[in-house]
């Protein structure tokens, strides 16, 4: 009896293993949380110092249209108007998502409902390939194909929002497509049968039932695509022209928040106003990614079919 008791009281090998496992995973979680907090702290504190240390007015930062952080305007205020970059970022994001979505839906429908056999093999492979191509390659292709083509077509330099949109279109297409495919696959097949059995044609079924049932998923896909477009730096930087001017048309050189960050970060001194101003751009990017995240959560909860 005593032996059994002693054995019961002593932690077994399995229990020890479990304790070790717990310690390892908690340590990792804490480390990652610290890392995230550190990143947030950096972006927020540096991003805010434009307004706290350099006394730039938040409103003039968001609404100003002149960006040359090294200089001061007639009133002696630094010229850090981020509006051109904000506008350009939103323009390329919205335009590329707008153009990509119909293509993505068409391709996804083809892959899931119209010709699922082909969809599984060939198209799936293409989509995965497109996702895997590094953005610098997209940028390079954009630079050698898209920019000269636009220049040839419309004159000017060829750099600008239009070129950026075209490159981003190709980049977000696979993102939106593969997520749309997932949401279409999640639509139960018996909706198709039920609808056809009521005398609907295939197309009526697709747009009245399947697309409708998949709408929350498709919206989520679009938001993810937009998040990717908004955050893409390298490829955009190579084709947008990098002029921090308020875009007058889709054909004039412009700059996005990300492209300005990559362009400018090497040319500024840590702690100076031009550097802090770039951190402020990063802060805007951070807030936008928060907004995209909330939007996804919101759309996802709205889409709960059992409500």
């Amino acid at each position, binding site marked *: 009896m005593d032996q059994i008791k002693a054995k019961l009281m002593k932690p077994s090998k399995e229990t020890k293993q479990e304790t070790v496992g717990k310690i390892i995973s908690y340590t990792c979680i804490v480390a990652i949380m610290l890392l995230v907090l550190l990143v947030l702290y950096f972006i927020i504190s540096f991003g805010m110092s434009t307004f706290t240390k350099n006394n730039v007015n938040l409103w003039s930062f968001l609404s100003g249209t002149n960006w040359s952080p090294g200089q001061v305007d007639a009133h002696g205020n630094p010229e850090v108007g981020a509006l051109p970059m904000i506008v350009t970022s939103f323009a390329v994001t919205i335009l590329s998502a707008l153009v990509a979505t119909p293509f993505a839906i068409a391709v996804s429908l083809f892959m899931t409902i119209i010709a699922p056999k082909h969809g599984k093999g060939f198209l799936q492979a293409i989509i995965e390939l497109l996702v895997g191509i590094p953005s610098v390659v997209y940028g390079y292709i954009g630079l050698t194909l898209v920019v000269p083509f636009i220049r040839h077509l419309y004159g000017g330099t060829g750099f600008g929002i239009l070129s950026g949109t075209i490159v981003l279109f190709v980049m977000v297409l696979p993102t939106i497509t593969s997520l749309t495919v997932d949401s279409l696959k999640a639509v139960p097949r018996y909706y198709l049968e039920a609808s*056809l*059995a*009521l*005398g*609907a044609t295939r197309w*009526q079924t697709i747009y009245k039932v399947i697309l409708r049932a998949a709408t929350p998923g498709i919206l989520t896909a679009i938001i993810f695509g937009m998040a990717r477009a908004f955050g893409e730096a390298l490829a955009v930087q190579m084709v947008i022209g990098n002029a921090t001017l308020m875009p007058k048309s889709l054909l004039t050189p412009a700059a996005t928040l990300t492209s300005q960050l990559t362009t400018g970060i090497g040319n500024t001194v840590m702690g100076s106003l031009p550097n802090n101003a770039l951190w402020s751009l990063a802060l805007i990017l951070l807030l936008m990614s928060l907004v995209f995240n909330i939007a996804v959560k919101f759309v996802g909860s709205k889409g709960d*079919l*059992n409500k």
Partner: protein
Amino acid sequence: MTDKVITSENVRLYYGEKEALHGVNLDFKKNEITALIGPSGSGKSTYLRCLNRINDLIPEVTVTGSIKMDKQDIYAPNVDITELRKRVGMVFQQPNPFPFSVYENVAYGVKLAGRSKVSKAEMDKIVEDSLKKAAVWDEVKDNLNDSALSFSGGQQQRICIARVLAVKPEIILLDEPTSALDPISSYAIENTLLSIKKDYTIIIVTHNMQQASRISDQTAFLLDGKLVEAGPTKEIFINPKEKETNDYLNGKFG
């Protein structure tokens, strides 16, 4: 002979190479309920799904023989399948309302091509009548704009029946419509079928022998893709001609 709505002769169905129906001859009379019974895998669903050509969805299915509806071969090349399916409604084993409101579910079939000129008032009327016929109106009338998925399985199945009735079919096919439901919901659906049969021809697949004997006028017994026998329900249940039918009804196999 004019009261035969559907006549099927020597119907064979192949899934690819495999023959799943081996020449079924079966007729259905107007305003009658026919029960299709038989063990699992005997081809009841396969046969039923030939009647509205929903089997066409499955690739590599071929059907031979003839199925005629009012003397028109429904597998003839010039047949409008959507028109056929409006005449031959179908209720499935699992309740499968669309993830829309109750109202939209019932209105769905009516709104489809050709019938789009229905006014709001007319549509309200159709929805109400259909839900009443399906004996579910009292339970849903205050929540017509709620998602159909928020109702119980039995209510969902009756909403699905209402959805079919709204299209005004002549024939209604039901594939084990109550197998996922509790006895009370099943009973409600049986009553629904009995109350609507004066306006429709109903064909129901069921594993529930009491259900078959309670509601059907004709019973057809299938085994391994063959029709063993069909006849008035009373005769089949009390005095079957074939030994296999007798064995099945007495629970000796299947």
